[in-house]
């Protein structure tokens, strides 16, 4: 726990420094001031090897061992330049805001462009603030062993909303694994985490019951014969028991709830709101899949009826921001 807190503190300081050094930008080209280089663990072993060889060569007064030692040392030093060259000049860009549902992986496509070839790049998002204790290291690393134009990085969003893209950590040890070059890249882009679709409608039911009771007192309700597609929730069960041949449903004319192509999120708060949003999300997805046009009614905003992926996206975004 202490380790985690220390790490968070460290990351705070680091990101403060990084924000000054590289504020988020649309397109980031890896240049000298963005690339950090330090020896890897294997690099330190290599240093030990060089030191041992120097001792051996000096003690035996053996020039050839010394020659080999210096050769290794120059390989070690030159690999700083090589590892830098393998990183520098890479341009990262994220053209489209990524989207995903809470609790699942959100895939962010990062465009890579360069006039050189880059090998063995490791990339992942850095999110130390992630609240889920089980996946502090959740963002799995993507390895691009060959030059590529896009990298699909995964992000785990736990809470719905619109977030700025976290920094991408991109590392490489390419030629000899003696040095690690890395960079934290901030791209000016957002990603959306939508509420996860959930068929549990308890929150909505509660509220709709409250609303219908209110409706009863306000305007009353009319009864209508059942038509295919009518919600079973509005079935008048007592009448059905008496006369099973003619099912009757309640109809509330003033209430959008009654209209099947409207998705309504009642004015709730807290956990109930979350559940309502999850249900609404499920509805939206179903409606889009069925091909009918639909609209969204939020406490503060109403989106007119339409259909198509763009409309769905708009609706989901509103849900995420609600």
């Amino acid at each position, binding site marked *: 726990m202490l380790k985690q807190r220390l790490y968070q503190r460290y990351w705070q300081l680091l990101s403060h420094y990084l924000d000054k050094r590289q504020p988020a930008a649309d397109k980031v080209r890896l240049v000298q001031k963005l690339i950090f280089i330090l020896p890897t663990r294997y690099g330190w072993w290599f240093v030990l090897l060089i030191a041992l060889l120097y001792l051996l060569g000096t003690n035996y007064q053996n020039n050839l061992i010394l020659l080999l030692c210096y050769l290794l040392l120059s390989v070690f030093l*030159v690999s700083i330049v090589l590892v830098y060259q393998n990183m520098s000049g890479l341009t990262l860009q994220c053209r489209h805001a990524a989207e995903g549902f809470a609790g699942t992986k959100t895939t962010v496509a990062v465009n890579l462009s360069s006039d050189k070839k880059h090998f063995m790049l490791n990339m992942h998002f850095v999110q130390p603030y992630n609240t889920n204790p089980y996946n502090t290291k959740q963002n799995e690393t993507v390895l691009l062993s060959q030059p590529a134009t896009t990298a699909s990085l995964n992000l785990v969003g736990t809470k719905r909303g619109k977030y700025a893209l976290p920094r991408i950590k991109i590392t490489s040890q390419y030629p000899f694994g003696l040095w690690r070059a890395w960079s934290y890249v901030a791209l000016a882009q957002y990603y959306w985490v939508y509420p996860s679709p959930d068929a549990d409608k308890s929150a909505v039911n509660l509220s709709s019951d409250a609303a219908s009771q209110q409706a009863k007192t306000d305007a009353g309700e009319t009864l209508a014969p059942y038509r295919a597609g009518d919600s079973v929730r509005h079935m008048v069960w007592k009448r059905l028991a008496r006369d099973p041949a003619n099912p009757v449903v309640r109809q509330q004319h003033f209430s959008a709830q009654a209209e099947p192509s409207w998705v309504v999120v009642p004015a709730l708060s807290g956990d109930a709101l979350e559940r309502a949003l999850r249900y609404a999300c499920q509805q939206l997805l179903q409606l889009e899949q069925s091909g009918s046009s639909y609209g969204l009614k939020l406490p503060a905003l109403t989106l007119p009826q339409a259909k198509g992926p763009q409309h769905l996206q708009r609706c989901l975004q509103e849900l995420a921001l609600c």
Partner: protein
Amino acid sequence: MLTQQMLQQKKLLLCWAAIQLSLLLLLQQAFAGWVIAIFALLLLYRLLSIFQAKAAVSLKLVNLLAGIIAITFFLQLRQAGVLHFMLQILLLAAIARLLALQHLYEARQLVWVHYFLIACCFILHQDMLIALLIFLVFAANLYSHYRLFSPSVSRLNWRQSGRSLLIILPLWLAMFLLFPRLPPFWQIPNANIASTGLSDTLDPGSIEQLVQDDSLAFRVEFDGALPPRQQLYWRARLYEDFDGRRWQVNALRQNASRQRAPDNAADSSLSYRVIAEASQQTGLFALATPVTSSSNVFISPGGLLSSSKPVSQRLSYQVSGSLIPVMLISEQEQQLNLRTAAGNPQTQQFAYQLKQQYPQSHALVQALAEHFRQQPFYYSLTPPPLGSNSIDAFLFDSRTGFCSHYASASAVILRHAGIAARVVGGYQGGNWHPQQGYLAVRQREAHAWVEYLDNGVWQPFDPTAAVAPERILNSLDSALPEDQRALLDPGWRQLALLQNVRQQLMHLDYYWSVWVLGFNENSQQQLWHNLYRHLPAIAYAVAVLFSIIIVLLLYYRLTRSSTGNTPEATKQLYRYLGKALAAKPPSLSVSAFLLQYVSHSPGQNVCLKQLTALYEQALYKEDAVALKQLKQYLQCHKAELGRLRRAIKNT
């Protein structure tokens, strides 16, 4: 996932197996026969399993096996010596790792151990050709190291590696030349290898064996002219104890080898540098009386040179001295060399006769030489075996012997005649290479002669020179009869071409040992000194070079920054329509500016529209195909573009 793929690459596994095989061959000197057999078996098994694509052996089994082998190595520790034990354990670790290789980190450890073992090969080998081979093995290991960290399918980027090599080479050489050199930090275990060259005992017959060895003993570079051949007696050993059959180095000498002789102000007219081959002995070589030497060797009171520890690798040292014979050190030394052994009655008798005839020691020696010259004495590599009174049997019976027989007999005669005398072992002559300017002394130049005391000076006397003067003036080959010469020269060596190649290689090896192996603190100091002396010139050169580079860089930056931001499509357009586009107001984009003229000049209508369309495609869509088309279009429609330019100008 990726690592598994990588480790299953046959090529990489084969590369490691080949590296280990060559390490085994290179280090075989350090291993006993059964150790080599174990390693070879393990490697063979691994190679078979690679070819049959079997999975790696389980780690437990390999650990068990390696543990047992390591314990047996440990039990043999005393025989093998610490250094060899270390090499055995390291190679065992590497081979066992390869047998059970499963993870990437294990492969990294393997590469690390390989690097260390490759460096250890240089303890045992310093020849140029073998060193080149070792560097090749190193390159293979570096390649496998690279493979571990690079994508599994990509190929080596030759251009990049070439460029890296261009940086590495000067860096490497500069480090080697300029990095401070330190004296050894502590005493290190030496390789436990049989010594070569003269031994501490001189049997009748030991030198005959030595001269059949054609390997190099040492090389000498003279600062002045080469002394005459008759004076090239390289002293290495003083044999002073005689037991009636064999000569031995006195215990006093062995202990005294560390003492430095006082620097008595004798003249040191002769200065030379010796590069001694590894002999695993402390004894070194010098002419007559050495006066001063470089700090890595000692001059003992007897005028002999020795190093503080056995010479396990090529050793280079500087000596200055004179060709004056060695002085007597003490009364004790004289007494030591007057002792006689029992036996050899005929020789005693002969010595007394000589003594009575020639009371002067100088005259007596002359008479002895005359005796050898006039009586039918023969010089031979294959003398007959001698009985218990070996000196008698040689002098009065067989009269056939090699230099050790003559030296031994002469010293015994002189001692019986009351003259202090001793046998000196060393080398005589050598092969002079005038172009390269060095004298190569091989084991076959091994020789034994006598020193006798005359007026407090140890005068050299070589009885062989009396029997076979060609041996001294020319070489051993010319002193021996035809059939015995064949003993020295196996058939292939007589091929002229091979001989020539061998010679050239030897010369190259000489430069190698002078410039690479012999590079030491002194050479480095010399280098620094030279650098310091030419400091202004070097500083100017570096400054000029730097300023040129900076100017070039600035120029490059300027030209790039002026065009660097403009996209390729715009550049292309400006190349052909530059003059016309000069009239463009900055507020207008290029395509908008061009499209203005569509209405003005209907003749260029199609051309303009096509051009702007392609241009926009190339610029805003970053479409490489459109850019190519644009280039082609601009190239193919030069005439039309000319008309367009005029049209724009006229409006």
